[in-house]
C-alpha cells in the first residue's frame, strides 16, 4: 500500500545509506556544506583582516584626529577640551585606553571601565589590543604625547558575530538545502521511485493494472514510461497467458470431466459386462432354468437400479404370461401375481410389450389408475419397465423390473434390460429345447430298449424250433431212427452244420441284444485264470488240430486268484482263439497270460492274415468282419469281437489288436484281477 511520506520517514530514508535519495542528498548536502565552509572561512578571514585594518585605520584616524585637534588646547593648556576630546574618542566602542601626557604628567586619561587595572605598557604587549602613540606638535613644538589603545575584543566580537551569522546562515542554508533537496528528491526521485517501487511490487504481486505515474519528463519519468510500457506488455502477455491458462484449465477440466465420465462409464460397463458374462456363463453352464433366471433377474435388478423384477414365460397355447421367477417382491404380491392372468395384449406393460414386441415402460404407476395390477403399488413400486423376451421373432416371455420412484427409465437401462432379456430368452429357449430333446431321447431310449428286448425275445423264440431241428437231425445221423443212406447222411451233416451256424448267429444276436437291453449282468466269482485258459484250450484244440496248427499257452506262474464272470471270460477266449484259428492257415496260435498293474493281460498271437490299419479301426464294431467274402468262407457272425469288447468293458477292462511285424495279429485284452462290480456301459 502506498504510504504518504512524512519528514521522519524522509530522514529515516536519508539515513539509510542504501536509498538512492539518501545517497543523493548526502552527496548534495556534502557539496553544499563544503562550499559553505570554504565560503565562511574565506569570509571570516577577509572580515578578520578587514576589521583589523579597520581597527588600525580607526586608531590611526583617532591618532590623526588627536594630532589635529589637540595641539591647540594643549598649547593653551585648555584641559577641558582635551578631556572632551578624549571623551569623544571613547565614542568608538573599541577604544579602551586613551591618555595625553606631557612628560610624566598625565593631562587627560581615560580607560574603559573593564580595563582600569590594565597598564598601558601591558596593553601594548597584548595581542588583544592595538596601541599607538604619537607626539602632539604645536608649530613644531612638542606639546604632549597621545597614547591610544583599542581593543581587538570588539573586533573579535564582531568577528564572532559574523562567524555566528555565517554559521547560522550556513545552517539555515544547509537546512534549507537539505529540505529542498529532500523535497526535490522526494518529489522528483524518491517519491516517483517509491511509487515505481510500490507499483512494481504491486505488479510483482500480480496487480498488472497498477497505475504508474509517468507524468515526469525526467529520467524517472522516462523510466516510469518504459516501466509502464513493460507493464502493458507484461499485462498483455499475462492476459494472453491467463487466457491460455484458462483455456488449458477449461480444457483440462473438460478432459478431467470426460475422463471421470468415461471412467464411470467404463466401470459401469465393466460391471455390466461382468454381470452379463456371469449370466452367459450360467446360461451356458446349466440347464437349470430356475437357477439361470434367478441369476438374470438378480443382475438385471441390480444393474438397472431397480428394486424388484419378474421373469415371465409366455404360454403360447393359452396366450398368457406365466411368472417363472421373481426378485425383491413380497410374498403377498408374488401370490397375487401368480393368481392374476396376464394376457398378451392386455393393458399391463408386459401385455403391451409382448403385443408390440418392444420395451414398454410406465414411468408413474399413480397415473395408470386402470392398471390391471393395482396391487403392485402396495409394495411401494412407482415405475416399471417391461421388455419382451424374443427368440427369432417368437415371443418367449417377458422381463419386468420395478422401481420405487417415478420417472422414465434411461435408454441405457432399456438397452441393458434388452440384453438381459435376450439372455433370458436364450435360457428359456434352451430349456424348452432341452426338455424336448430329453423327451425325444427318453422316447428313443425306450424304443431302443424295446428293440433290444424284442430281439432278445425273438432270438430265444427262434432258437426253440432250431434246437428241435438240430436235435432231430442229430438223432437221425446217429441212426436212432434206423439206417440212413450214405447220401442222406452227408446231407444231414451239412444240414446240422448250417443249423449250428444259424444257432450261433442267433446266440450272438441274443448276447448283443441282452447287453444293449441292459439285461446282461455279470456273475462275479473267484476263479483261476490259468485253469480257465487250460479248459478253453482243450475245447478249441480240436479246431486247431483240424487245420494242422500248433496251439500253445504261455501262462505266468503264480497267477493270483481273480474275480470275474468266468463264463464270459471263457466266451471271449473261445471267440478270440476261434478267430485266430479260423484266420490262420499255417503256423501257430499262442496264448500269453500275465499280470500288469493290477490287471490280467491276455494276448492271443497268430501267424494268420493279419489286419490292415482300416481293419483295426472297425474290427470291434458290430456286424463287421475284415471282408464279406472271408466271413462267408470262414463262418462267424461278425458279432463275436463286438460282444467280447462289451464284456471286457463291463469288467472295467479294454481290448485291442496289433499287427505282428512278421505277419499275423495279436488280440489282447486286459481285465482287473479282481472285478468287484460291473461297469455300466
Amino acid at each position, binding site marked *: 500500500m502506498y504510504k504518504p511520506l512524512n519528514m521522519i520517514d524522509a530522514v529515516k530514508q536519508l539515513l539509510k545509506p542504501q536509498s538512492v535519495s539518501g545517497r543523493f542528498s548526502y552527496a548534495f548536502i556534502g557539496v553544499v556544506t563544503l562550499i559553505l565552509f570554504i565560503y565562511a572561512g574565506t569570509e571570516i578571514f577577509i572580515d578578520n583582516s578587514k576589521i583589523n585594518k579597520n581597527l588600525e585605520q580607526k586608531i590611526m584616524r583617532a591618532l590623526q584626529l588627536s594630532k589635529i585637534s589637540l595641539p591647540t588646547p594643549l598649547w593653551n593648556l585648555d584641559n577641558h577640551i582635551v578631556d572632551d576630546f578624549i571623551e569623544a574618542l571613547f565614542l568608538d566602542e573599541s577604544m579602551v585606553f586613551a591618555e595625553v601626557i606631557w612628560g610624566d604628567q598625565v593631562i587627560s586619561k581615560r580607560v574603559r571601565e573593564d580595563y582600569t587595572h590594565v597598564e598601558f605598557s601591558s596593553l601594548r604587549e597584548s595581542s588583544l589590543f592595538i596601541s599607538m602613540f604619537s607626539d602632539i606638535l604645536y608649530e613644531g613644538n612638542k606639546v604632549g604625547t597621545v597614547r591610544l589603545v583599542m581593543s581587538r575584543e570588539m573586533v573579535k566580537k564582531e568577528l564572532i558575530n559574523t562567524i555566528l551569522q555565517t554559521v547560522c546562515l550556513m545552517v539555515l542554508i544547509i537546512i534549507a538545502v537539505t529540505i529542498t533537496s529532500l523535497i526535490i528528491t522526494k518529489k522528483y526521485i524518491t517519491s516517483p521511485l517509491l511509487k515505481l517501487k510500490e507499483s512494481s511490487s504491486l505488479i510483482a504481486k500480480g496487480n498488472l493494472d497498477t497505475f504508474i505515474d509517468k507524468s515526469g519528463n525526467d529520467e524517472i519519468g522516462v523510466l516510469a514510461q518504459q516501466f509502464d510500457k513493460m507493464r502493458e506488455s507484461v499485462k498483455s502477455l499475462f492476459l494472453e497467458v491467463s487466457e491460455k491458462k484458462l483455456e488449458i484449465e477449461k480444457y483440462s477440466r473438460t478432459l478431467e470431466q470426460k475422463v471421470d465420465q468415461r471412467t464411470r462409464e467404463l466401470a459401469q460397463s465393466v460391471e455390466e459386462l461382468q454381470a452379463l458374462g456371469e449370466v452367459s456363463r450360467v446360461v451356458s453352464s446349466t440347464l437349470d432354468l430356475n437357477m439361470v433366471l434367478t441369476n438374470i433377474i438378480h443382475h438385471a435388478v441390480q444393474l438397472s437400479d431397480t428394486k424388484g423384477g419378474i421373469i415371465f414365460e409366455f404360454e403360447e397355447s393359452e396366450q398368457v404370461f406365466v411368472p417363472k421367477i421373481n426378485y425383491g417382491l413380497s410374498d403377498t404380491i408374488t401370490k397375487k401375481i401368480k393368481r392374476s392372468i396376464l394376457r398378451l395384449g392386455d393393458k399391463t406393460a408386459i401385455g403391451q410389450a409382448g403385443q408390440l414386441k418392444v420395451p414398454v415402460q410406465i414411468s408413474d404407476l399413480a397415473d395408470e389408475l386402470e392398471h390391471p395390477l393395482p396391487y403392485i403399488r402396495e409394495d411401494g413400486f412407482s415405475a416399471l419397465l417391461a421388455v419382451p423376451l424374443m427368440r427369432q421373432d417368437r415371443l418367449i416371455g417377458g422381463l419386468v423390473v420395478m422401481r420405487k420412484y417415478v420417472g422414465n427409465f434411461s435408454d441405457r437401462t432399456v438397452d441393458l434390460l434388452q440384453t438381459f432379456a435376450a439372455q433370458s430368452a436364450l435360457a428359456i429357449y434352451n430349456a424348452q429345447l432341452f426338455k424336448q430333446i430329453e423327451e425325444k431321447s427318453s422316447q428313443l431310449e425306450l424304443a431302443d430298449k424295446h428293440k433290444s428286448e424284442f430281439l432278445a425275445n425273438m432270438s430265444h423264440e427262434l432258437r426253440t*424250433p432250431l434246437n428241435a431241428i438240430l436235435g432231430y437231425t442229430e438223432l437221425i445221423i*446217429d441212426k436212432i431212427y434206423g439206417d440212413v443212406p450214405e447220401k442222406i447222411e452227408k446231407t444231414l451233416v451239412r444240414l446240422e452244420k448250417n443249423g449250428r451256424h444259424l444257432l450261433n448267429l442267433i446266440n450272438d444276436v*441274443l448276447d448283443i441284444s441282452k447287453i444293449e437291453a441292459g439285461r446282461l449282468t455279470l456273475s462275479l466269482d473267484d476263479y483261476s485264470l490259468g485253469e480257465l485258459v487250460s479248459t478253453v484250450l482243450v475245447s478249441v484244440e480240436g479246431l486247431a488240430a483240424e487245420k494242422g496248427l500248433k496251439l500253445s499257452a504261455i501262462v505266468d506262474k503264480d497267477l493270483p486268484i481273480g474275480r470275474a*464272470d468266468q463264463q464270459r471270460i471263457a466266451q471271449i477266449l473261445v471267440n478270440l482263439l476261434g478267430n485266430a484259428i479260423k484266420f490262420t492257415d499255417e503256423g501257430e496260435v499262442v496264448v500269453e497270460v500275465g499280470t500288469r498293474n493290477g490287471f490280467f493281460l491276455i494276448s492271443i498271437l497268430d501267424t494268420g492274415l493279419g489286419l490292415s490299419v482300416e481293419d483295426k479301426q472297425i474290427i470291434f464294431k458290430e456286424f463287421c468282419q475284415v471282408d464279406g467274402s472271408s466271413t462267408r468262407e470262414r463262418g462267424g457272425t461278425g458279432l463275436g469281437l463286438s460282444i467280447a469288447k462289451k464284456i471286457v468293458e463291463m469288467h472295467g477292462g479294454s481290448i485291442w489288436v496289433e499287427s505282428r511285424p512278421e505277419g499275423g495279429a495279436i488280440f489282447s485284452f486286459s481285465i482287473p484281477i479282481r472285478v468287484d462290480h460291473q461297469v455300466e456301459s
Partner: protein
Amino acid sequence: MGKLILVVEDQEDNRIILRDLLTNSGFEVAEAVNGIDGVRMAEELLPDLILMDIQLPGIDGYEATRQIKANAILSSIPIIVVTSYALSGDDKKAYNAGCDDYVAKPFSPRKLLEKVRNFLN
C-alpha cells in the same frame, strides 16, 4: 427193466427228441409237461434220474428242483437241469436250487446221453 428217467419238459419236440434218444438207449422215460406234474410224478414214480427244463408253466424248473430235493425220499435222485441258452447266472441258480448237473440248450443229444449214462452207471 431199464432205468426210469423222468423228463420234465413243456416243449413237445424236446420231449420227443429226449424220449427217442433215451428209449433207443434202453431207458424208460416218463414225461411231465409242467413243474407241478413233474414234482408229483417224481414222488409217485421215484425215477432214477430227472431231466428238468427251467422254463415251465406253473412252477419253474428251479422251484420244482427245490421241492424235489427238499423231499428226503427224493433228494438222492440226480437232477440234470436243461436250460435254454443260459442267461448269465442261470447255472448258479440251478446249482443253488440243488441240481446235480447242468446242460445248456441246444444240447447235443450225444453229449446229454453221455452225462445220463455217467450218472446212472
